[in-house]
């Protein structure tokens, strides 16, 4: 089911200051996709999710799920949480400690007054879907973090909702388990015809899981798009910086050619990916560390997009070397293969491809 959010506003007052958790948010979440709300903590992403599920009441605006308006300030509509027929996985999992796995998962069906036999059948089916077959009698307190997470997912899925919401569901797992669970979650969700709204502050999680990402900042949605668009083709400097590590360089647009935009920066004149800015506009150049491949020596000739520099620091981090290259007045971050022959102090040069040179607004 599609979710529509129109003009949603929610302000809090804390210690006399007004905090705009949601500042006129407009959003359409298409049906049957995995949609991620990504942003730093305090950007309003969780508040937005809680407004959709009905645990938080907005100040103004309208929310509709499918064809039904579930909340509207103008039409004075409020459908309480328990009537919205959604599934949700909480950050703390919220597994009820006084019930066993079966009772936890059966709870939504019991609320719908489903016959007992059918409950047993559907709980068993859902538990085997999340690979917890045979765990019915296990007390909730005797589950590991990963198992609790799957029970929470089973409970959210058992009533076959059309929409499932996730509030940072992986943030309580340790790094290794988080990666495994993320993959599992992706495969679970892709098997179902379901709209998933996923809240996270972890960019890798967002990139790996989502069909669409909406990046939020200070109660507003800054940019929406699929993971590749957000990573390679961000429109704003905030998004480019937040979604991955980036070298940000000030530049001025000097020329628009048919397929490229030419800028002047302290790294010299660079041919970049085409971007719609007028000549003379001050912009920011975004170079991802993984696209910088320095080689020893000095550049021959004056080919375009070749930048000379000097290795300033070199740190081994296991799967790669992280290095800082001094280029003019800038220090550029780069990632190097673990097997390479560079040392601190080496003179190097590297070429950046025009379509790996992203221009965003200043």
């Amino acid at each position, binding site marked *: 089911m599609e979710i529509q959010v129109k003009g949603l506003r929610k302000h809090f007052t804390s210690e006399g200051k007004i905090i705009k958790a949601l500042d006129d948010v407009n959003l359409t979440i298409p049906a049957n996709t995995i949609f991620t709300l990504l942003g730093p903590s305090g950007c309003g992403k969780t508040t937005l999710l809680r407004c959709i*599920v*009905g*645990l938080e009441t907005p100040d103004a605006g309208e929310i509709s799920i499918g064809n039904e308006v579930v909340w509207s300030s103008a039409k004075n509509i409020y459908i*309480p*949480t*328990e*009537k*919205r*027929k*959604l*599934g*949700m996985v*909480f*950050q*703390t*999992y*919220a597994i*009820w*400690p*006084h*019930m066993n796995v079966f009772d936890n998962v059966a*709870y*939504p069906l019991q*609320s*719908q007054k489903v016959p007992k036999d059918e409950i047993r059948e559907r709980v068993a089916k859902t538990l085997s879907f999340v690979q917890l077959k045979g765990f019915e009698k296990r*007390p909730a*307190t005797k589950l590991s973090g990963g198992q609790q997470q799957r029970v*929470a997912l089973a*409970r*959210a899925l058992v*009533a076959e909702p059309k929409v499932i919401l996730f509030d940072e569901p992986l943030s309580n797992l340790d790094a290794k388990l988080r990666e495994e669970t993320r993959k599992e979650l992706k495969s679970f969700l892709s098997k179902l015809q379901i709209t998933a709204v996923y809240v996270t502050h972890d960019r890798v999680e967002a990139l790996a899981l989502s069909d669409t990402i909406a990046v939020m900042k200070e109660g507003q949605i800054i940019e929406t798009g699929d993971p590749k668009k957000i990573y390679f083709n961000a429109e704003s400097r905030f998004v480019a910086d937040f979604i991955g590590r980036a070298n940000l360089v000030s530049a001025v647009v000097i020329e628009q050619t048919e397929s490229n935009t030419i800028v002047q920066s302290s790294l010299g004149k660079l041919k970049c990916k085409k971007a719609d800015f007028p000549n003379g506009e001050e912009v920011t150049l975004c170079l991802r560390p993984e696209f910088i491949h320095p080689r020893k020596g000095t550049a021959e000739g004056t080919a375009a997009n070749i930048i000379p520099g000097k290795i300033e620091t070199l740190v081994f981090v296991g799967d790669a070397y992280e290095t800082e290259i001094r280029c003019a007045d800038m220090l550029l971050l780069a990632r190097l293969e673990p097997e390479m022959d560079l040392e601190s102090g080496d003179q190097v040069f590297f070429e950046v491809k025009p379509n790996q040179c992203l221009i965003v607004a200043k």
Partner: protein
Amino acid sequence: MAQRHKRLTYSLIVLVGFLTVCPVLMLILGSLSEGLTAFGTFTVKKYIAAYTDPDLFLVLFQTVVFVTGAASLATVLALFLAYISTRTDMPFRFLFKIIPVIPMMIPHILFSISWVMLLNPSNGILNLLIRQLFSLDHSIFNIYTLPGMIMVEGLLDLPIAYLIIAPAMSSFDVALEESSHVCGSDSFRTLFKITLPVLRPAILAAFILCMIRCLASFAVPSAIGMPGRIYVLATHLYRMVSTGFAADYGKAAAVGVSVLVSSIILIYVYRYFTSSSEKFVTISGRGYKPTVIKLKKAKIPIFIILLTLSFVLIILPVLVLIYISLVPYSMVPSAKAFASMSLKNWITVLKDPISLLSLKNSLFLGVFGATLGIALSTFVAYVIVKVRTKSAGILETLSFLSFSFPGIVIGVGFMWFFVRTPLYATIWALLIGYIATYLPYGIRPLTSAFIQIHSHLEESSLVSGASYLKTFRRIVIPLLTPGIVSGWILMATMFFRELTLSVILSRPGSEVLAVQILRFSEDGQWGKLSALGIIMIVVSTMLVSLVNFIGSKLRPME
């Protein structure tokens, strides 16, 4: 939702505010009035009379000695027992974790009186025994002295000091001690240079709390102090309202105001220490592995000391009660004594209409009062933990105010109020007084229970399609059950044995057990007293076990 919360918060503020502020206000107004019947004509005469009383200086001096003495004894004993039970290789250490809290289970008035029966100079059993053994013509011990009072009160306050000190001692970071050893200090030096200084806030908090309890204590001053004509503030107050031809509630209120003020000051000092204690006692998240101190040669002597102490604490008082309840008068255990044993005292008590009425009243107050008190506490705790508005903060302050109330002073305050209502001299006056005075003891376990219920647990139930009512019934109440059960037990046992408030508010027809026991003690009817005392202990133990059992049935956990 918010509207509903607001209404709940305000009605609770009114209710709890009435319960806690009313007695204080009436105490102050009463102290400025001519007398119970002449309420409202203001005068400072009572203050002048109370504070120019020539006895007052001695009373104050004895109060200070009694309070500091007993609090020090309790704290030192608690420290010793906590150290032994958490940090040494003492055999049967688990026993020494139970022993310090045992005095909680015996009503204070019974504990005090059993010591009187052991050590009073005329027919105390231990005294008689020693006289017989060494053919002396006078008794060696006299319980009716300040040291006697301090000893018994110190033992009674041991549990509270232990419950504060022991957790702090077992949870502090052992690395602090280990680094002291690395720096070249032995165990002894480490104890005095590192362990005790780090624990200082917990120790001081225990000491202050014991002082508050000693100041409010009435059992020891009445059962031991009064026969020896050693008066402290609590008994000084009691003397004014209960003896002589004209009870002077105005003068009592005038003295009570300063007792209340000192108690409130002590509570603030206590809160200061408990809030700063987090700065000192560092609890590390790592698995706790205590370094066990080897006692070596000291093991056996300390073990014997501890065994004696536990004998004195638990077994002796109960044994004395059983023994005295069976013999016709206080006599040394002998063949003759055993030959003359009978159930005469028991039969007299069970036929005594006032004793039976007091048992009935106490049972009613315990069961019904605790139920009512816990119901109120549940709502108050809910507002304090889950609503968290500014007015919820006011409610929290209000509800913990009565923590510092000495029962006897609050009783005088309530007296000024109830005498103006039809509740005067009824059991309902006691019920209201009990709940007002002991409300914090019900709220404490429930706030911690509510804190453990993460709001996500309720929210996920709503998302699952359950209504508010169903969520409350299926999620909140089951998770709250342990808190409700322990709060109920705490309140019921406190109400069942209540003495200090009752001696002021109980009137013919509304007698309660502890007061009836005090009356027997004043008349020297040890036999009947012991029989009634044992009935009291047995009934209260049965009540606690029953509720514990029901509580475990209600909880499907584990």
